């Protein structure tokens, strides 16, 4: 034992994964005594997680990126956890979002200790995906994330939720297995599973060899399923729409985000920019896949009447932008993509939370039912409108910062088709959110009493905390936009290394 403070700092990154996975068992054990203990345990665990994530983040800011050898086995044979300018902020994002969702779920649920155990398990999986530096370990964390998400989607208790969850499970498992298949190809080609080691051995194998190309294809398709790019998104609208409000907010904010982050790591820490230079076809295909996703996702969102489905298709479109920006392999675009990744997580979580508040208190679920809602629930509607405009890309909010940086990158790279796609997507985003805001503020409700009556009476009351969280997220979305340059400065050293 050396100084305990120093050990805590050194071990914070492994505790981020090890602590919540063990602590996730506590609510289940306590559930034997009382079914109401889960919330407080989850609140404590997620607050500790925030402290650990902040410790890692501060360490990265003070001394630069560092890695941790799990079990003392040196990489490339041992598993490595990596904290750097990209993974550390994302770890903080995951922990803070968890705190917010736990606070939000206190009143409307889902209640029960299993829910909180599953939520903590999901947080573990997400933190693991972000922190790991080993491609097989990444598969395991992807599956932990997956398993916890399937269980959470089904916590809605309805058969529809179970069906949505099973659909997600089948498609998600195939996606993760394809990723594993791809990892198998890379392992056959190089004999290593460590990301850093892979990136240095792949050039000697040759980027254009069938083994590496097949591995790339399988990995990209597998992760695209998890990110929910069109046409691999089919699990996503059902899963978001059928799960309880707190769950859809959490998974929409973080699950696809973690998968997109994994794609970023694999593209640049494993395959590197040289791969794209050697195999431009792979790059073109990825840009094409993402661009189609941007446009089709937005068009499908415009066509939806159910609000949660509209937000789900909006995610398909926004992740298209994120992946397209990753694929053009330009430093500015990648920075923009990471900013948009973080920004989208905050904004989409806030939108789902606001929709949850309005659905619970006023029974409004479709765009039609939102008529005049701006005057019946002014605070939540205001926050919803701010978040919607932020996602459209109105300055100074974070949505603007992300999209603007991506656009700059696309112009720098001379990717004119993609530039057009991103501008079009902004217009389409305005189309579906503009329609909503118009309904909220400028349409007289057809029958003011009707939408309340259809709710069936005894709606559980919305707590003050839920409204406060929605407002807080809206404020965060704007504040993040103002400090976006700091965010870019944190990401920059990591991305610079990939282009060195």
């Amino acid at each position, binding site marked *: 034992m050396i100084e305990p403070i120093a050990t805590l700092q050194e071990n914070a990154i492994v505790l981020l994964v090890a602590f919540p996975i063990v602590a996730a068992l506590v609510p289940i054990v306590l559930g034997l005594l009382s079914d109401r203990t889960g919330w407080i345990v989850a609140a404590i665990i997620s607050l500790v997680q925030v402290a650990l994530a902040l410790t890692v983040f501060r360490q990265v800011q003070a001394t630069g990126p560092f890695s941790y050898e799990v079990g003392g086995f040196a990489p490339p044979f041992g598993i490595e956890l990596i904290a750097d300018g990209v993974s550390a902020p994302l770890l903080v994002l995951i922990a803070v979002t968890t705190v917010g969702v736990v606070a939000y779920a206190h009143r409307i649920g889902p209640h029960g200790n299993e829910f909180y155990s599953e939520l903590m398990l999901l947080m573990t999986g997400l933190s693991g995906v972000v922190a790991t530096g080993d491609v097989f370990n990444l598969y395991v964390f992807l599956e932990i994330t997956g398993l916890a998400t399937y269980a959470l989607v089904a916590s809605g208790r309805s058969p529809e939720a179970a*069906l949505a969850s099973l659909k997600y*499970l089948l498609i998600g498992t195939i996606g993760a*297995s394809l990723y594993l298949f791809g990892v198998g190809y890379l392992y056959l080609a190089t004999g290593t599973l460590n990301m850093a080691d892979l990136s240095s051995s792949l050039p000697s194998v040759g980027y254009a060899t069938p083994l590496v190309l097949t591995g790339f294809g399988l990995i990209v398709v597998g992760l695209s399923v998890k990110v929910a790019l069109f046409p691999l998104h089919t699990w996503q609208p059902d899963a978001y729409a059928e799960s309880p409000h707190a769950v859809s907010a959490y998974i929409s904010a973080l699950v696809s985000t973690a998968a997109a982050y994994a794609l970023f790591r694999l593209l640049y820490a494993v395959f590197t920019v040289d791969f794209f230079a050697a195999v431009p076809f792979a790059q073109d295909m990825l840009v094409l896949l993402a661009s189609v996703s941007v446009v089709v996702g937005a068009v499908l969102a415009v066509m939806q009447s159910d609000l949660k489905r509209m937000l789900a298709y909006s995610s398909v479109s926004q992740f298209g932008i994120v992946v397209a920006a990753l694929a053009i392999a330009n430093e500015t675009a990648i920075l923009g993509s990471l900013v948009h990744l973080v920004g989208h997580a905050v904004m989409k979580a806030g939108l789902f939370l606001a929709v949850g508040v309005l659905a619970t208190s006023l029974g409004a679920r479709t765009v039609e039912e939102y008529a005049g809602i701006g005057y019946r629930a002014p605070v939540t509607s205001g926050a919803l409108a701010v978040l919607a405009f932020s996602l459209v890309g109105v300055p100074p909010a974070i949505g603007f910062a992300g999209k603007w940086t991506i656009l700059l990158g696309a112009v720098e790279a001379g990717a004119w088709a993609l530039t057009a796609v991103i501008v079009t997507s902004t217009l389409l985003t305005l189309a579906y959110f503009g329609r909503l805001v118009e309904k909220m503020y400028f349409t007289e409700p057809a029958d003011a009493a009707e939408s309340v009556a259809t709710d069936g009476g005894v709606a559980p009351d919305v707590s003050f905390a839920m409204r406060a969280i929605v407002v807080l997220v809206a404020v965060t979305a704007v504040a993040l936009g103002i400090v976006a340059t700091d965010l870019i400065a944190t990401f920059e050293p990591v991305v610079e290394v990939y282009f060195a």
Partner: protein
Amino acid sequence: MIDLLATHHVYLAAILLVGIGLYVVVGSPNLVKKVIGMNVFQVGIFLFFVTSGYVDGAGPPVVGHGSGPLSSPLPHVLILTAIVVGVSLTAVALALIVRIYDGYGSLDEDVIKEVRVND
């Protein structure tokens, strides 16, 4: 072609399993069969991994167990983990199927679709 079959038959078996599994997941309307298809699909990938560590006539890489070619135990260990993941997934899937059957009274995707439309 014959030569390829003789030397790479395990890879062909793996690809066949993956193909059959995917076909069952997509083609069968029965939810339980879909889960079985998912398992077959995963087994194909497991087989692919496990064979990659196999060397003809090789010994285990343990000190004192002879020299000559050694086979790598790493893929086997990885797949052990993946099998555990697969079992958990199957368990969750079957639990969900029980709930779906309780709700709709059927395991047939087409029947469930009809029930949902009629509701």
